[in-house]
């Protein structure tokens, strides 16, 4: 059974695009933003390229923010103390992960490793908090979308728990 934390809640289509603007438009976190507001997000987003096998973040690292895959694939991996690891999810173009780190610095619950050469966007808590302070109306839209995503995950977790209890 896959963990609801790493499930992609929803993203509209998997249209390949290396245009940051279009990639952002397809992320549920930014779905309520108008083009002008998306341009504002575009200004604070970081674009990174990762080679196959390169870690994006490691389990236990302080959480800093979320990533959106423009192109490539990312493995979400749980590492045990004995050094063994198992893949929790494989995420592809348009998927996003690490969004809970937008809220606090709690250690990452799993590692994210590039499964292919990846083109990725990073949206980080310090920039988000700064945006929330400077442009509260825009920050609140993102915060509300984040709350909806977390709520959706919680609902799915409850459903899975209920199923387990029935068994």
């Amino acid at each position, binding site marked *: 059974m896959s963990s609801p934390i790493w499930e992609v809640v929803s993203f509209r289509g998997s249209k390949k695009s290396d245009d940051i603007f279009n990639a952002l438009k397809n992320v549920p976190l930014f779905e309520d933003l108008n083009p002008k507001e998306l341009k504002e997000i575009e*200004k*604070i987003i*970081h*674009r*990174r390229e*990762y080679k196959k096998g*390169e*870690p*994006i*973040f*490691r389990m*236990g*690292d*302080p959480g*800093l923010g979320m990533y959106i895959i423009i192109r490539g694939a990312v493995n979400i991996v749980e590492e045990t103390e004995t050094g063994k690891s198992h893949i929790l999810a494989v995420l592809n173009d348009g998927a996003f992960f690490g969004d809970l780190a937008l809220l606090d610095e709690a250690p990452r619950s799993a590692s994210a490793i590039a499964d292919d050469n990846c083109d990725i966007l990073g949206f*980080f808590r*310090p*920039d988000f908090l*700064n945006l929330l*302070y*400077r*442009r*509260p109306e825009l920050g609140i839209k993102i915060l509300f979308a984040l709350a909806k995503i977390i709520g959706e995950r919680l609902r799915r977790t409850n459903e899975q728990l209920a199923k387990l209890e029935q068994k």
Partner: protein
Amino acid sequence: MDNYSYRLYSQILTLFWRVLLGLLGIAAVIVIFPYVKSILVLFVIALLLAVLLSPSVDFMERRGINRGLAIVIVMLLIIGIIAFTVSLIIPGIIGAVESLSSKLQSDVITDLNNNIENFFAVNFNNAELARNITSKMNEIGLKLLSNMAEFFKNVGSFLASVAIVPFLTFFLIKDMRFFKRALIAKIPNKYFEMSLNVLQKVGNQVSKYIQGQALDAFIVGCLSVLGLFIINLVFDNPVSQFVFIGMIAGVANLIPYLGPIVGAVPALLIAVISNPPNLGVVLLWIIITFILVQVIDNSFVSPMVVSKSVDMHPLTVVIVVIIGGNLAGAVGMLFAVPVTGIIKVTIAEIVWGLKHYKLS
């Protein structure tokens, strides 16, 4: 060469190149520093101003004002306040210095010349020697005055350089985020998250520290002005230019331990020069005022507004202030503690990052 020797040889060679590059780097910094010192000081001033003014700009941006326009408004306001304060204070100071120097020239110097000539004429019967001595003294005096003219010329060129500060400040406030983003874009993936996190934490702590110090300096300045104003009311104006002295006390307060003394000395000097009838009592009250200001600052103001993350040992403060003075004069002394605080916070955060991130 066996495998072990080869590895050892290659390690020693790598170490040699690293040390050589490190030493060359240090030498380059030492050689370049004198040429970039003045622009570096201006940049530090602009950076401090950017940190101080950013909250006001963010506040205006929150209310829907375009960021560029908000920066212009805030900077015009600040320049206006500074110009107004300077226009209030400077004529008074120039007047006081002029009256003091004319008093010294007319009375003291002439009297001193006459006394010396009389002394030599009466005691050694040698007016020629006396004239030589007095002319030598006058020569030294003229030299001092011309040095002073040179000093003011330097101040002029300094002020011209300072005109660059508003431009630097404008672009630092407007584009700081983009500078940070451009800088972080160059960091390898392995260190990316750690660097971004550390940079952000350092930025936050440094901003809080600088804003806290500025607020503390402002409050100490206001308290000093208030105290000296009351002394002026009670003792018939023994401390002229008390607003200016209060400002010096506020700014000097940026240097822990030494600042309060630097703040009190001008007030005591002015009181001594104006020589009121009850000088002893006035001096005592000035000292009490500055002690009271320090007690209020250390007990109530400083704990509330100044970040404790950059607390320094008094000996460290003295050493860094001396080093700052050697590197960049009075400005260096003033900024020595804040800059050391920034370096301390940066090192602490880098150590935190190295401890918490898995970089292997």
